């Protein structure tokens, strides 16, 4: 395992751990206001200080991790669960109208400015975590469809697929039995990348007020809340900012590391 993978997995699991622990324990109630105790810098009682409502930043970061992870994970889930079958179908029927339709549809989704559409979606259906998930998820679909199709197409050329066809297996069965397991690595790697992009996207949407709604804490909203206060309470922006950066960094490192680790071609080259 590479250094990247270890570092990335370490950082990511730290965040996941924080999110999981937050279900049973946080130092303070993350939603409890204590206005007289507002804007404290990090100290022994409040490790990350308090925000403008006197809420404990550490607790908010912990619970915020939950939001980020949930939104990003579900968005990736949407992208994968729709994109992968579409990609498999397109590859299995290469050159057919179905393939053409799926690929043109992909291009079309790609052509839409994602943030504008996300804003529109949330404007239409209301701001909130669920709509953020949908908005981010929609743009994950073509990503997974495309990458699945690309990988599947080259697999379809391989002789073991021909062997499976000789064994009388149909396209659907071959896709499920032979293609999918062989693109899984690629999907896992892309998944971590989309996951990290999802976290950034959630932060961006929350920053413009369209992500998870209060009192659910979200790193992006913490940043938005903090932005006017950076000049006198920089920790309010630095801490959630760093949380986002470290999480995304961890996921990206993990994605890179996984790619190296899972790709046998590279593995051989290194030994």
């Amino acid at each position, binding site marked *: 395992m590479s250094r990247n993978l270890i570092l990335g997995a370490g950082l990511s699991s730290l965040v996941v751990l924080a999110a999981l622990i937050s279900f049973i324990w946080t130092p303070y109630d993350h939603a409890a206001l204590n206005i007289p105790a507002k804007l404290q810098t990090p100290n022994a009682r409040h490790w990350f200080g308090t925000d403008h409502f006197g809420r404990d930043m550490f607790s908010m970061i912990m619970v915020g991790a939950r939001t980020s992870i949930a939104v990003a994970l579900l968005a990736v889930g949407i992208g994968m669960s729709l994109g992968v079958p579409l990609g498999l179908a397109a590859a299995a029927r290469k050159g057919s109208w179905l393939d053409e339709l799926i690929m043109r549809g992909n291009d*079309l989704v790609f052509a839409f*400015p994602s943030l504008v559409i996300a804003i529109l979606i949330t404007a*239409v259906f209301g701001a909130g975590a669920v709509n953020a998930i949908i908005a981010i998820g929609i743009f994950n679909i073509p990503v997974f469809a495309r990458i699945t199709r690309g990988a599947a197409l080259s697999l379809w050329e391989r002789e073991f697929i021909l062997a499976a066809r000789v064994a009388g297996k149909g396209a659907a069965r071959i896709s499920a039995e032979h293609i999918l397991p062989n693109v899984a690595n690629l999907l896992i790697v892309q998944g971590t990348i989309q996951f990290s992009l999802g976290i*950034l996207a959630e932060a961006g949407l929350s920053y413009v007020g369209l992500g998870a709604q209060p009192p659910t804490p979200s790193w992006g909203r913490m940043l938005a809340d903090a932005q006017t206060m950076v000049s006198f309470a920089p920790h309010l922006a630095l801490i959630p900012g760093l949380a986002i950066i470290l999480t*995304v960094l961890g996921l990206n490192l993990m994605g890179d590391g996984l790619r190296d680790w899972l790709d046998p071609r590279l593995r051989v080259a290194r030994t």
Partner: protein
Amino acid sequence: MLRYSLKRALSLAISLAVASLVIFAVIEIAPGDPASFMLGVNAQPDTLAALRTELGLDQSKAERYVSWVTGMLRGDFGTSYTYRTPVSQMIADRLWVSLPLALYALALSTAIALPAGIYAAARRGKPGDLAVMGATQLGVAVPNFWFAMMLVLIFAINLRWFNAGGFAGWDKGLTAGLHSLTLPAIALALPQAAILARVMRSALLDILGEDFMRTARAKGLTRRQALWRHGLRNALIPVLTIIGLQFSFLLAGSIIIEQVFYLPGLGRLVFQAISARDLIVVESVVMLLVFAVIVVNFLVDLAYALVDPRLRTRT
């Protein structure tokens, strides 16, 4: 080439038609009425009705869609509900900020990323590579609005090298205009540069493993000569794709940055228009952005052919 262009143009037209429908549908179901937004809380029903008639909002959705689309085909994007000026005029004005900003950011990101990527690829595994790759990892991870906040804090408020925002206007001269776009362009460009540098590096590394690079070395080219003469142009193909994608992202994705730096650009126009339910403006701008993305991708495809002779003959 002609056939290829024609086919692309056809699919481009279909895409645009579908896009216009999708945009119209999504935007029209957004709750909120532009007329009541404009007239506020004390508006009386008859006043509202009068305004709705004036704005053409009393027509059916189908009628409005048709007149919007046919208008656009004639180059007429309609009239903004709130501003009451031609949308095309508004877009043209805003484009003078957004387009230079996007190009500026693109130039910056390319200028930073390509050398960094080449440097890292040439020093694969060495400390220089690790440093560049570390920096790009960070660059990808930093949300650009957060980065923008930090830039303003440091360079505008503390050092006062730049204005905190706003756009000087091109009439004040090119340097003044560019000066006021510099911080936003950096904020936009850096995360993109990080991505681009990574693509550049991995594309180059892929190429370095190609047989023809070994051939070049066997001819007596040094590592560096081989990289520049044979590696770069081949590595440019994936890099071009990303540059194409980035341009459209920069054009459309600057909403937040334009907000932070209060630039009068397209992004901010859409944002305002969405909250004011100035539907026709939103529809037209989104349409324009989609158009831009599709056209840029088309151009990138054509650029491939310039770089890669194999594509030139593929009819």
